[in-house]
Every structure is written in structure tokens, then in C-alpha cells.
């Protein structure tokens, strides 16, 4: 499906298909997981929801996956959004404080999503219209956003019981947890927005060369603002899910360092930090690789001190597998062997 959106694939004879490094890595990690913990793929039904380690990979992967879906077009424009973790904290704080009022579920959710859009608009305006480098522009909200969230929650962990917010993490559709459905819906939305229209092409054009794109008539300012707003919107959804999961807003910790995981997922998915070509599907795959690793480490019984090292090695392996230099080397090796025989 994704190959059609990739005009380069037909020109590179040594590549079987584009997602091979990512897919094989995911399969490899899952195989290691099942060796470590034979019950990894056992799935039962608990309270009408699927229940098992493999389901955890998807369910726990949802926040980073949604963040990565938001981050992908931003990175494709050559930008970056460091503020998504802080936006999660803000969205969580807003969710928790609204959940204690009499507002209806749809009102709470739309207000939270609007908060996310507003955060994205702020980033977008700084980047697009003031021309501040994305790294610095979004750093502002990364630092101040957590402070805002703490102001809303007054430094406490705000807990609540609200049927509408609970629904997000506690319900299921045909035994599939709702959060996973939401993730798929965001993927679909992003795909329609970016690939169903010309926006995706404009995003890539802006990322490759903003000046040239402006000269051929792409409204790059509007494109940039839109992608940052989309990223803020996704972060707000992730914030809703995280807050709903623990039924509380923890402004100090919600979404902490998740921006790094999201960026990592996008990079593992093959989108270059320099901008240009992107793929939502592979970013999602990247997020699942990270989570498959996390869940695998948790069930394996490794010492927690090893977690980061194992993670770093796996990431290194994925990035090496994608490295153009390595690919050229392997191709040359193949040619030599053929020549020798």
C-alpha cells in the first residue's frame, strides 16, 4: 500500500521493499520476547477486552504511536516538535480539571482537543511566521508547558471519576481496547489529511526546500502551521488517553520524555530529520518496535539497569539496517560475490 506513495522504490534495485528493516526488527523482537516468556502471545478475554502481553504492546504503544503520527509531518518539513510531552501534561491537566465539572463528555473532549490545537498553533506561528528555528520555538512550550500544567493542577495529582473520560481507556469495541481503535482512527485521519489531499506533497516539498516551494506557489507558512497544529492535536489525544488510563493528571510526569520516544519512532520509521519523504505507517511501526521492546524487557525479568542499554542496542541495530552507507556496502559485497562466481 505504501509503496505506491514512494516513487523512489522502483529505482533502487537492491531494496526488496521499503519497510523490510522495520518489519523484520519487529518480528525479531517479538520472537525474542516469546523465547523469553513463552506466554507472550497468550490472549484471553477479561471484562470483554482482549488481555495479554501482545495486546499490551499495542495498548501501551498507543500514546507514543499517536505522538509519532503527529510528529511525522512536522519532521518531514525539516522541523521538530519538542513540546509534545508538555502538551500531554497540559491536556491531562485540562482533562482532569474539566472532568470534575458538570460538562458533558463531548464538551470535555473537544475542549481538550482545542487546547492541543491552540498549543500547535502557537508553535506553528513561531516557526512559520516569526521564522524561529523549530528546535528553539518548541523548546519554549516544552519548558513552559509543564509549568502551565502544574499551575492548573496546583502541583497535585488530580484524580477524578468521569464516565466519559473513563470510557477512553476502559471500554472496548469488539473486544479491541478503544485506545487502539483511536490510534487507528488517527492513522486514518492523518492519511486522509496528508495523502488524500495534496498537503502531504506540500509538506515534503517544504521540507526539501522551503524557498523553492514558496517560489512555485506553495503557501509554506500555512503548511507549517497546519502540521504543528496536527502535532498538537495528536499530543492532546495522547494526553487524554494517558490521563484516562490512570484516571488522574500527573503534571510532573505525564508525557515526560515521550517527545524523545516519538522522535525515535519517526526516525526508526525511516523519515529523515532533514525533512522530505515521510510515511505515517512506518512511524506507527517504529512506535510498536519501541513498545515491543519495552514490554518484552518488563516480562523478561532483566535487571532494570539493563533496560536502557538493551533499548539503545536495538535502536542502533534498526538504524544501521536502514543506513544508506551499509546498503551500498552490502550491494557491493553482493556484486563482488556474483563476479567471483
Amino acid at each position, binding site marked *: 500500500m505504501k509503496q505506491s506513495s514512494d516513487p523512489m522504490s522502483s529505482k533502487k534495485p537492491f531494496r526488496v521493499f521499503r519497510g523490510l528493516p522495520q518489519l523484520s526488527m519487529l518480528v525479531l523482537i517479538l520472537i525474542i520476547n516469546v523465547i523469553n*516468556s513463552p*506466554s507472550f502471545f*497468550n490472549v*484471553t478475554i*477479561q*471484562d470483554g477486552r482482549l*488481555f*495479554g*502481553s501482545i495486546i*499490551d504492546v499495542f495498548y*501501551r504503544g498507543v500514546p507514543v504511536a499517536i505522538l509519532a503520527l503527529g510528529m511525522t509531518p512536522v519532521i518531514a518539513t525539516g522541523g521538530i516538535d519538542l513540546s509534545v510531552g508538555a502538551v500531554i501534561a497540559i491536556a491531562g491537566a485540562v482533562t482532569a480539571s474539566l472532568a470534575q465539572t458538570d460538562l458533558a463528555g463531548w464538551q470535555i473532549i473537544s475542549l481538550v482537543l482545542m487546547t492541543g490545537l491552540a498549543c500547535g498553533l502557537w508553535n506553528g506561528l513561531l516557526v512559520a511566521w516569526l521564522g524561529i528555528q523549530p528546535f528553539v520555538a518548541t523548546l519554549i512550550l516544552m519548558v513552559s508547558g509543564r509549568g502551565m500544567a*502544574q499551575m492548573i493542577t496546583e*502541583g*497535585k*495529582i488530580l*484524580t477524578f471519576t468521569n464516565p466519559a473520560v473513563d470510557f477512553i481507556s*476502559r471500554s472496548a469495541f469488539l473486544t479491541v481496547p478503544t485506545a487502539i481503535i483511536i490510534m487507528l482512527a488517527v492513522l486514518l485521519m492523518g492519511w486522509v489529511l496528508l495523502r488524500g489531499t495534496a498537503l502531504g506533497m506540500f509538506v515534503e516539498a517544504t521540507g526539501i526546500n522551503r524557498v523553492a516551494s514558496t517560489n512555485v506557489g506553495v503557501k509554506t507558512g500555512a503548511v507549517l502551521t497546519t502540521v504543528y497544529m496536527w502535532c498538537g492535536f495528536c499530543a492532546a489525544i495522547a494526553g487524554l488517553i*494517558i490521563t484516562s*488510563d*490512570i*484516571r*488522574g493528571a*500527573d503534571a*510532573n*510526569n*505525564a508525557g*515526560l520524555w515521550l517527545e524523545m520516544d516519538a522522535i525515535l519512532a519517526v526516525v526508526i520509521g525511516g523519515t529523515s530529520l532533514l525533512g522530505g519523504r515521510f510515511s505515517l505507517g512506518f512511524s506507527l511501526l517504529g512506535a510498536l518496535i519501541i513498545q515491543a521492546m519495552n*514490554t518484552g524487557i*518488563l*516480562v523478561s*525479568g532483566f*535487571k*532494570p*539497569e539493563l*533496560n536502557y542499554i538493551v533499548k539503545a542496542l536495538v535502536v542502533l541495530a534498526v538504524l544501521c539496517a536502514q543506513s544508506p552507507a551499509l546498503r551500498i556496502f552490502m550491494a557491493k559485497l553482493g556484486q563482488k560475490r556474483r563476479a567471483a562466481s
Partner: protein
Amino acid sequence: MKLLKMCLVVVSLVVLMAVSNVAFSADKLVVGFSQIGAESGWRSAETKVTYQEADKRGVELKFSDAQQKQENQIKAIRAFVAQEVDAIFLAPVVETGWTTVLKEAKEAGIPVFLLDRLIEDKDVDLYTSAIVSDQVLEGRLAAEWLAEATGGKANIVELQGTVGASVTNNRKKGFEEVVAQHPDMKIIHSQSGDFTRSKGKEVMESFIKAENGGKNITAMYAHNDDMAIGAIQAIKEAGLIPGKDILVVSIDGVPDIFKAMADGEANATVELTPNMAGPALDALIKFKADGVAPPKVIQTETKVYLPDTAQAEYDRRKELY
């Protein structure tokens, strides 16, 4: 005429206030408190309790919030020295870099009390006394309670705090010491939940799946209450009853764990008291009154709380945090 009268009233009021201020400050102790910030509920509670304890003893408190920055704490200490306060309370944000500023305080003859955290050993002569909790004891008490509740026979899963943090290491050490004395008590899984609710929940979920849907797990020990609260949700979502199918013991004593205990979902918590200032103030007052030098290290009281007092403790604490 009216104006003159007004002026007179104002002037006399100002004079009166100045006089009374002097009269008060003559016998009222003034303490400068440099707090780290308000990064956790416990920290804010410590600040509130410090105000209350100072109030109780008629001590004037000058408060400075450092917002997690050492430079702000250094500035605050210098300001306190300039104001010639009677003592400085310091909750140091980091262990190093205090030598210069604490020397200034020492030269000015102002005693410094460390609250809750220590600084590096080479500066040990620069402070008067440190008020700290015994984190190893906290872990030990949690394990002792568990050994008694299970008759020394338990498969335990442990949710550790942030890897490498001293509090994680100490709470783990104390717990393991006691577990080692009971041959039938075993820690079957131990992972880091980063002291947060959502990580605590995620880690507990994976433990439950690794142990036959949680049926092999007797008890869960968490290095703080927040992770335990997350884990309680994971236990419930797996169709088990927290506090019964899996016993729950944790450390800190935040209000929400008392609520969980009152609801029967948690079994015990070891309190880390936010009252670090009380013992410090007592030591200071004694020092000022009869020159008794306070001990270098003052340990706060560590206490296990059980469900029977949970509701009352929750009501008492919810305003503090």
C-alpha cells in the same frame, strides 16, 4: 485640618507598628527556609507543614522557593545571611557546590539545618544538623509487615523507583534484608516504575501476565505510593482483587493511598513524614536556649499505617497535599 489629622493618625500607626515589630523580633526567632520547589505533592506538603510547625512555636519563617535551581538557593541563603536570620533551613536540590555559600553562613554565625536531603561529605562541618528519614528502615518495615501478614511465605513483585536514585537503592536494600531472613519469601519480579502512576500500572500489567494472570503473585511492594496506586488499577483490570488476591504495601503515605486503604484496596503504607521542620525547630530552640549542640543527624519517625486508621488519616492529610 482633616488632612493633618489623617497624617497624624498614619504617623502614629507607623511608629506603633515599628515599635511593636522591634519588641517582637527581640524574642522571636527568625528562620530562613530555602525549599527546592513544588515538584511533588510530598514537597508541597513539606512546605505547608514547615509553616505550621513554625507557627506553632512562634517562629517567623522567611520562605524562598528555588524552583529546582541551585543558584536560586545560593541567592536565598546569601539573602538570609544579609538579613541576619537566626537559622537557615535548607532542602538542597543537589549534593555538591555548597561549600562557598555555607562557609559564608558559618562565618556569620548562622546555624544551617538540612531538611530531607544530605550534601557531600566534605561539607559536613559546614552545617549544624541534618534531619533525614531512614530509607533503609522504610523498606525494612514494609517487608516486616508483609512477613507477618503472610506468615513468611510470599511471592513478591517489586516496583522500584527511578533506577540509580539513592532512595530506590535504600528502600530496595531494607526490603531485601528482611526477605532474606525468610526462606519462603521470594521476590519473583523487580522492575522500575519510575515513581509514577502510569509506569507503575504498565509494569504491574506485565508482571501479572508473566505470572499466569497474576495467580502466582502473593504481594506487591512499591517504592512509593503513586506506583502502588497505578498497580492497584492494573490488578483490578486483570480481574483480581487488590488488597486480597494480591496484597499491596508501599511507602510515602500520600493521601490517595489512605483512600485506597479505606476502600480495602491497599494493605499498608510506611510513612515518609513531611514534618522535617518540627524536629529541626525543636533542636534550634534548644540550641538557642541552653546552647546544647544538636546531633549531626536527626532521624525522623518512621511509622507503618494500616487500614484501620486510613479514613481518619486521609481526612487529616488531604488538605496538606
